[in-house]
């Protein structure tokens, strides 16, 4: 895709620490244009978070084998190292996490952390100017009494406020791409909605490209332009939100959408389910990883990993039965 701000080509990540290498990501292609939001949807072990962390090269080098190419804002991420990598993190691409207490340093005030981040990436910014910017950021993420909160420590804030502070820190150096790793999963429902609305608003105002990793389809629908469904390290279905939600074509997506206990009890009926459990990434079958759980699987499914089938409007599905599944 031309004009993309982030382009991932054939990303493969394997963790080699255990007896058998774990193929966490197994050939992911993904491109984002500026200002676009893609939700990366999947269950635990699907490789969604691993993909996200690869973009910032956050995996321990000695226990990870990483292949493929990642280009963000014209920078070849795989070629970065040392100071260049540190400069890239936070300035070009930055990230927010599920647990803000792990991302924020407990021994510094929030103001100190944000000013430090600004002055590290932009030389020549005075302490006063950086503090003014930090205050502006706190106002922007709608932290009440921002002046006072800049001098607070992370533990003094409630969960939702901490999440806002972390968003402020992530936006401190005007990144072009924001990576969100389940930022609302640990929050209560009434707080989750507030944070989702805030992220959507900031993303639009700042024209950020954003990858939003989540296990909750509802959250994906709420924030994203496109949805990419991951299973066992591969994107099995990708497309515009409306297409994926209203006309899912991969059996796994169809199953996920129908297992949601939505709309109340269906007059005592059982929920439709996907049988079995997610595969062991250390010993993946040669064919389609979903085949053992798939009701429409045939012997052909077990032979080779299915290639992506284009359905038009950027809707693509990795299933050899795509034509047959309505």
């Amino acid at each position, binding site marked *: 895709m031309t004009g993309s701000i982030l382009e991932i080509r054939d990303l493969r990540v394997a963790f080699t620490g255990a007896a058998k290498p774990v193929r966490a990501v197994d050939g992911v292609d993904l491109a984002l244009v500026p200002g676009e939001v893609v939700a990366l949807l999947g269950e635990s072990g699907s490789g969604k978070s691993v993909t996200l962390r690869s973009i910032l090269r956050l995996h321990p080098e000695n226990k990870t084998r990483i292949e493929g190419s990642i280009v963000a804002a014209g920078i070849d991420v795989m070629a970065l190292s040392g100071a260049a990598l540190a400069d890239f993190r936070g300035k070009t691409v930055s990230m927010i996490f599920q647990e803000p207490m792990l991302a924020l340093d407990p021994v510094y005030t929030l103001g100190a952390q944000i000013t430090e981040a600004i002055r590290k990436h932009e030389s020549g910014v005075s302490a006063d100017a950086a503090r003014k910017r930090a205050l502006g950021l706190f106002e922007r993420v709608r932290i009440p009494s921002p002046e006072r909160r800049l001098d607070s420590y992370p533990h003094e804030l409630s969960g939702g406020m901490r999440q806002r502070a972390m968003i402020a820190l992530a936006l401190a150096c005007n990144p072009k791409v924001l990576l969100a790793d389940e930022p609302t999963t640990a929050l209560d429902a*009434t707080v989750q909605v507030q944070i989702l609305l805030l992220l959507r608003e900031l993303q639009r105002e700042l024209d950020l490209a954003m990858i939003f990793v989540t296990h909750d389809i509802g959250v994906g629908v*709420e924030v994203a332009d496109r949805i990419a469904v991951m299973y066992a390290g591969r994107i099995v279905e990708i497309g515009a939100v409306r297409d994926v939600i209203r006309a899912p074509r991969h059996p796994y997506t169809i199953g*996920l959408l129908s297992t949601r206990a939505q709309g109340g009890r269906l007059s005592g009926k059982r929920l439709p389910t996907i049988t079995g459990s997610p595969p062991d990434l250390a010993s993946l079958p040669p064919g389609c990883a979903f085949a053992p759980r798939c009701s429409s699987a045939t012997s052909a499914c077990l032979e080779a990993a299915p290639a992506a089938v284009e359905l038009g409007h950027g809707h693509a599905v990795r299933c050899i039965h795509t034509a047959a599944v309505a």
Partner: protein
Amino acid sequence: MKDENASAPLLQVRGLVKHFPVKKNLLGRTTSFVSAVDGVDFDLRQGETLGVVGESGCGKSTTARLLLHLIEPTAGTIRFGGRTVGSVALPLKEFRRQVQMVFQDSYASLNPRLTVEESIVFGPMVHGIARHVAQARAHALLERVGLDPVRFAGRFTHELSGGQRQRVNIARALALQPRVLVLDEAVSALDKSVEAQVLNLLLDLKGEFGLTYLFISHDLEVVRFMADRVLVMYLGRVAELAPTEDLYTGSRHPYTSALLGSLLSMDPDRRTVAAPISGDPPNPIDPPAGCRFHTRCASAQAVCAKGAPGLAAHSREHWVACHMFDAGSGHGSAPAKAA
């Protein structure tokens, strides 16, 4: 509660209170408390599923642990089948045989040094059942929860997936042949595809064994699917209690409405445009005076900061603790007091 029409409830909870000490002064005297549960009343009827919902810190999990006497209540009574728990008529040990619990963390709730079979037979053997009888029961239950005893009885918990472990936990709870199962966020840690399987299993087991469920969850969709009646808690108190569909389609308490308004639509053309309430739940160490929700409530008036509203019947079966529905409370929206 004044439930004249209903038959005698299986489990009756009255005035349940739990204060945890958080700060002590130099002399070891406690100077401040978390009032985790603060005067909770409810009935659990034979054969129903009572859903309990609320945000973190609302006291739903504490309520579950108080029910099983895993922690001692500061005040309150629990009656089971008309008998007070802990009395001569109903010793704690017998009560615990009848009421079992499934925890959220499937890994932490199984002893890592025991095999699946040993975990399941432990309870029955405590109650004097011979090992071979307990083993036969364990194998039958494993079969019933969808785990082949030949493959799973001799395994250790770290060899199982999250869904399989939670099935073992359910079998372990059922091994005592209880009448009530307390499910404390029992499916919250599972992936959606596995969650649906376990929910179906719970529905089947309930019919088969004639169980009564107390189903605690933060997930309103799941509660709507499972529950017959729903109890909404906020900061240690009951906000609303109603039959499931009444609650989901005609909620009265502003907090319940906010919770329901926070549900995501799953429809890209009907995205949420404004958050129903702002801010986080207050700290339970120092909860707001009066109605605990008044600090976040759009309809709050002066009266709400003064007195705590009691749980009152809005219609038959539908109970609300809100000054707006309490005749003569002094709230502008309250109905006039009947002459």
